[in-house]
């Protein structure tokens, strides 16, 4: 168990700034997920923590020890790659013991560690096989085992489940979470899969263009996104955005209204960072599951729209609405009987769940 702290990290590859002035604190025992679209620098960050990419500026420490220029093997890390990266000419047992053998660990100790890792990952029967004789899931377990046998204090995962099929991915995801619980080691996990991020992470760092956009618990990243990028990146279907203006009316009690051609909503309960003066151009974000469908023209409705498409998902269904040119996704019960396409319908939003963003800066208000 070690904490990882990164200060003002800058990484330049072929003259391009991939990361700049990046600061990151990972507490000991934490499961941090780096989430972002491809090319956002999350893998670069992970590889620089591993010591596989040279740092251009800044410093990093693992377990309080400065490792900015340390060799990968001296950082107390274990890494799992997307392509497994198993040594093809060695048996599973030799793959697992390669690291400790180089480090000169005593034979009995190596055997003990390999045995324990194999038990943990259900690899005991496979120890004499070659990687080519294993299935994808087994290969990835061997790769995880390699990090276990190294007794790494920080585990680095570079999209470890992306090469697996959906069912196996779900299983291995659960095993990883269990492993983290059992070991209590620090884990840093790179993925572009938001389900993996939400389920595994104790904190998620959402990245874009080499910058961390938001770093918080999964619930907060999902529920209180720091900007429109984070809001749009998490959730499927993604958050609905509606442009409009804020109106402040102070007849006795001060009320704040969000007004747009699509909908009107009372957002007085919203936790504004600075109280609005009225007239601000804003974007209202609302998740599909926080919109409910009503009768057209109902009292409760915040607006009216036409039904344009229905996607049945089994447990639920996604109803797409056309509200005066703005497309809205609504997460409805599977039992809910949707009116025929192109019928007029009302919709109500849970105003406690909205997010408001500045139209210009796209930052959360």
């Amino acid at each position, binding site marked *: 168990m070690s904490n990882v702290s990164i200060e003002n990290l800058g990484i330049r590859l072929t003259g391009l700034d991939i990361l700049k002035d990046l600061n990151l604190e990972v507490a000991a025992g934490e499961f941090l997920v780096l989430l972002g679209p491809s090319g956002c620098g999350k893998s670069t960050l992970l590889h620089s923590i591993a010591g596989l990419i040279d740092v251009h500026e800044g410093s990093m420490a693992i377990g309080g020890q400065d490792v900015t220029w340390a060799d990968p093997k001296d950082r107390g890390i274990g890494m799992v790659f*997307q392509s497994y*990266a*198993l040594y*093809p000419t060695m048996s599973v047992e030799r793959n697992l013991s390669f690291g400790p053998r*180089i480090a000169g660990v005593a034979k009995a100790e190596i055997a003990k560690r390999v045995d324990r890792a194999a038990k943990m990952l259900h690899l005991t029967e496979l120890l004499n096989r070659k990687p080519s004789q294993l299935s994808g899931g087994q290969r990835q377990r061997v790769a995880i085992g*390699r990090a276990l046998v190294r007794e790494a204090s920080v585990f680095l995962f570079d999209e470890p489940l992306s090469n697996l099929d959906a069912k196996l991915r779900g299983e291995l995801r659960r095993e990883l979470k269990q492993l983290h619980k059992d070991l209590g080691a620090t884990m840093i996990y790179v993925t572009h899969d938001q389900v993996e991020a939400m389920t595994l992470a104790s904190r998620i760092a959402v990245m874009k263009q080499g910058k961390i956009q938001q770093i918080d618990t999964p619930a907060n990243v999902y529920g209180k996104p720091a900007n429109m990028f984070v809001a749009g990146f998490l959730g499927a279907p993604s958050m609905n955005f509606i442009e409009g203006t804020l109106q402040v009316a102070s007849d006795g009690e001060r009320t704040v209204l969000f007004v747009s051609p699509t909908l009107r909503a009372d957002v007085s309960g919203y936790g504004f960072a600075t109280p609005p003066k009225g007239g601000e151009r804003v974007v209202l974000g609302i998740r599909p599951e926080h919109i409910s469908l009503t009768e057209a023209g109902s009292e409760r409705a915040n607006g009216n729209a036409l039904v344009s498409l229905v996607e049945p998902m089994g447990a639920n269904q996604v109803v797409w609405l056309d509200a005066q040119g703005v497309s809205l996704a609504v997460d409805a019960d599977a039992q809910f009987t949707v009116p025929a396409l192109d019928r007029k319908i009302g919709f109500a939003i849970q105003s406690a769940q909205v997010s408001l963003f500045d139209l210009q800066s796209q930052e959360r208000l």
Partner: protein
Amino acid sequence: MSTVMVNPGSQSHRQVAPRKRSAFTPARIGLYALLITSAIFFLIPLYVMVTTSLKPMEEIRLGNLFALPSKPSFDAWVEAWSSACTGLECQGIQVGFWNSVKIVVPSTIISIFFGALNGYALSFWRVRWAGWLFGILMFGAFVPYQVMLYPLVRTSAMLGIFGSLTGIVLIHTVFGMPVMTLLFRNYYAGVPVELFKAARIDGGGFWRIFIQLMLPMSLPIIAVAVIMQLTNIWNDFLLGLVFAGRENLPMTVQLNNVINTTTGERLYNVNMAATILTSLVPLTVYLVSGRWFVRGISAGAVKG
């Protein structure tokens, strides 16, 4: 629904005439004719060599080049191997055979080792000016030997290894370097770089990753390299003649000496036997390992 329906008539018609490719279309006949003629064309010299080497001189003097030997005997082969004259000495070409072995074995091993090492370093380690170094090495591959001959003679004389076994092995190693490096660099380009990174994290250094991880993975391409170097160095005449020195002349040079030693009658049967003996090694290598050669080439070209 109507589009799914199949006309029953056409279906039965198809079952009646299951198509089988006929073996004798005009195109096939043309193809075989071409292949057989070219095979005969290339095999005639070999045929003449083998039959002549099995005939005694009296039969050869009759001039029936294509006739089969009436009483085949291996006398000429024995003479070529153990008592044919190369200049003043008459010990056959066996001396050259063992000289060639002494040259080929170390040259092949050393050039492959360094070629693999170069390819590995260029593919996985960030070498400063790697692109330029590789470019210069490749440039060397396109300069004809003959141009470099004199400078190389002067250089090796200066180093004191001119006309020695060390000298000729070094020369062959150097000349093998561009192609060997290219071969291994391309092979390692197909190896996922994550494998190397994983080994780095496991604590592997430059040599350990090379010897314990990369070399065992390189067996297919090593097979190709062995075949290439073995046949190239065995077939070499010019470098052996110039650099090997009087004591270490390779088989190809000895063969030339056997054939060009003119004292009295030209012993065609001995010459033919000596020639076959000399070409036997590369010929065997091709016949035995041609399969691996093709497999290795394609393994180098395609990932995985």
